[in-house]
């Protein structure tokens, strides 16, 4: 890559806006992860059980945010990769007898499987120039294909009943073993995994790769004219996105003790779109927080008889509001709040 091309890639997005975001993002991430680390020390019981699930859904939301916020690509098929991760760990732990920890193999298989599937599908579609809305329809079909496949091979996958998945054990050879059966060790393992994945993803998206991807979002034709292999970058981005969804799915299955066809479904896929729209598509931590907030709210409100039937309706209306009024989601709202304060304190 020439120097000119690189700087053009940088110019392709709004540099000042981004510099501001990075600063706030880091602060928000530190606060959020610290808060999550403290929660089990203060509260016990159901919250400690359920929060890791929501963190993993947050990871799934991040997998869409890198696509949508950075690449300008929306996928209605993230659940397909999530399900590949979930069923991989479930099937390996159920059927394989291995000399090594089967959960490791399951996670590895689920993650690489989902990543590879996304790479292949991404290459297949992007290399032919399938864009925006067409891509949405293709990924919509992908979700249905995976869901139906899982349902129809019921003698292996358990079909509609879902697949029971054990809690995994963390082991280091025969030296050290820690069962994640209890909620406390599970909580911190998931938190660690999510944190590491977040840090790595942020690093990748701030590397030249991420900048080129933003360039593609802002002006695909210009990036092509500058000599960037746009389909290849889109494919890699989609592969990374599938990989993240696969990690989330694998850990989710072992935490929740099941993998279910609805984990691959269209409705679940579009739930991810709602989380990201509400949390903020341009901010990874925003998407992560969006998933946790919406999922917690959904859980809480569904337990109240008077409004449980109205929550999904309300969620749909919030989604509309997020698209029309708050295009940057919660992350954008928080950011503008800080911006205002700065203005107020300046003379």
């Amino acid at each position, binding site marked *: 890559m020439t120097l000119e091309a690189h700087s053009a890639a940088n110019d392709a997005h709004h540099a000042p806006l981004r510099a501001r975001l990075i600063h706030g993002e880091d602060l928000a991430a530190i606060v959020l992860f610290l808060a999550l680390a403290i929660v089990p020390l203060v509260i016990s019981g159901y919250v400690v059980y359920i929060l890791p699930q929501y963190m993993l859904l947050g990871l799934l939301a991040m997998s869409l945010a890198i696509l949508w916020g950075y690449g300008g690509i*929306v996928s209605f098929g993230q659940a397909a990769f999530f399900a590949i991760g979930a069923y991989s760990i479930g099937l390996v732990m159920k059927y394989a007898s291995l000399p090594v920890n089967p959960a490791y193999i399951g996670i590895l298989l689920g993650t690489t499987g989902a990543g590879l599937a996304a790479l292949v599908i991404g290459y*297949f*579609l992007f290399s*032919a*120039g*399938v864009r*925006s*809305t*067409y891509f*949405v*329809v*293709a990924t*919509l*079909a*992908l979700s*249905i*294909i995976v869901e*139906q*496949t899982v*349902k*129809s091979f019921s003698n292996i996958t358990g079909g509609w009943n879902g697949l029971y998945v054990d809690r995994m054990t963390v082991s280091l050879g025969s030296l050290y073993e820690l069962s994640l059966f209890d909620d406390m060790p599970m909580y911190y393992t998931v938190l660690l995994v999510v944190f590491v994945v977040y840090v790595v993803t942020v690093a990748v998206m701030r590397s030249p790769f991420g900048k080129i991807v933003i360039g593609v979002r802002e002006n695909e034709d210009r990036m092509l004219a500058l000599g960037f292999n746009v389909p290849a970058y889109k494919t890699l981005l989609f592969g990374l996105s599938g990989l993240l969804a696969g990690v989330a799915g694998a850990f989710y299955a072992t935490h929740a003790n099941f993998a279910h066809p609805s984990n691959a479904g*269209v409705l679940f896929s*579009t739930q991810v*779109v709602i989380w990201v*729209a509400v949390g903020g598509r341009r901010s990874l931590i925003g998407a992560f927080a969006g998933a946790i907030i919406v999922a917690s709210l959904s859980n809480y409100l569904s337990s109240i008889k008077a409004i449980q*039937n*109205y929550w*999904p*309706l309300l*969620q*749909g*209306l919030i*989604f*509309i509001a997020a*698209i*029309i009024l708050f295009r940057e989601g919660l992350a954008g709202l928080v950011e503008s709040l800080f911006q205002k304060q700065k203005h107020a304190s300046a003379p």
Partner: protein
Amino acid sequence: MDTLISVITDTVLITLVLALAAFGLAIIYGLIGVINMGHGAMLTLGAYFTWSLTRHGMPFVASVLLSASAVGTVGLVFEHLIIRHFYNRPFDTLLLTWAFFLVATEVIKIVFGTDFRNVARPIEGAIDIGIYRIPAYRTIVGGLSILLILSTAFILYKTSLGIKIRAMVQNREMAGLLGLNVAFMYKCVFGFGSFIAGLAGGLIAPMYSVDPYMGNTFLVRSFFVVIVGGIGQVLAGTLFGSFTIGGLETVLALFSDQVIAQIAVFFIAVVLLRFRPQGVFTGR
């Protein structure tokens, strides 16, 4: 021989029903470029209105027409409140129509409940053609499907309204500069597409059990009908697309399980989408 005839009649009937279900989507997508992800919910809404009206003693035909008008009105209101502000941002219309699906489905669940409902067939029996018997109601719906497409073709190609619409499709700015009320015509097309979706939902209701998600299966198949047929090829494209998707489903179901056939059809449709994104039956 018997199998052949039954496959042919099945394919024809499935093609026509699918064309009916996809037609509203094809109109809105092809003429004003809005990807109506709420199409499935509009079908479902039409089916529920019809169920509700017939249950209260209204004759079937009147129920279907009233339901279609109601869905058309819902479409018009949605267009007026939200969609018309987003015509220049196609991606947002996709997300907003999907939000319409979510909201409409929840409203249906709250108002009508989640149980499976059945609409009685207005015409029982079958038409005997010697060795094979064709279900009478499906045949009539198939005929209506053809009639609907032909009359839309008549409007588009033989009336002054049709000329205006085609002018608008070709060049929106120019049509506006020449004094056409583009905003009004967009509204009409969106309303008409919604009306057709409601009509299709009402007509399809007696063939399937009605539940809040019945439109979903049709949504994705309708998309592939439109994409395979070619966007903008509202009339012939819809028929060709339906024939490809419906025909494949029928033929594949002969050799395998129905679910596997559907998986295979979606798979083939994605492959077609990649190699011929402008539609299979349109010239390059």
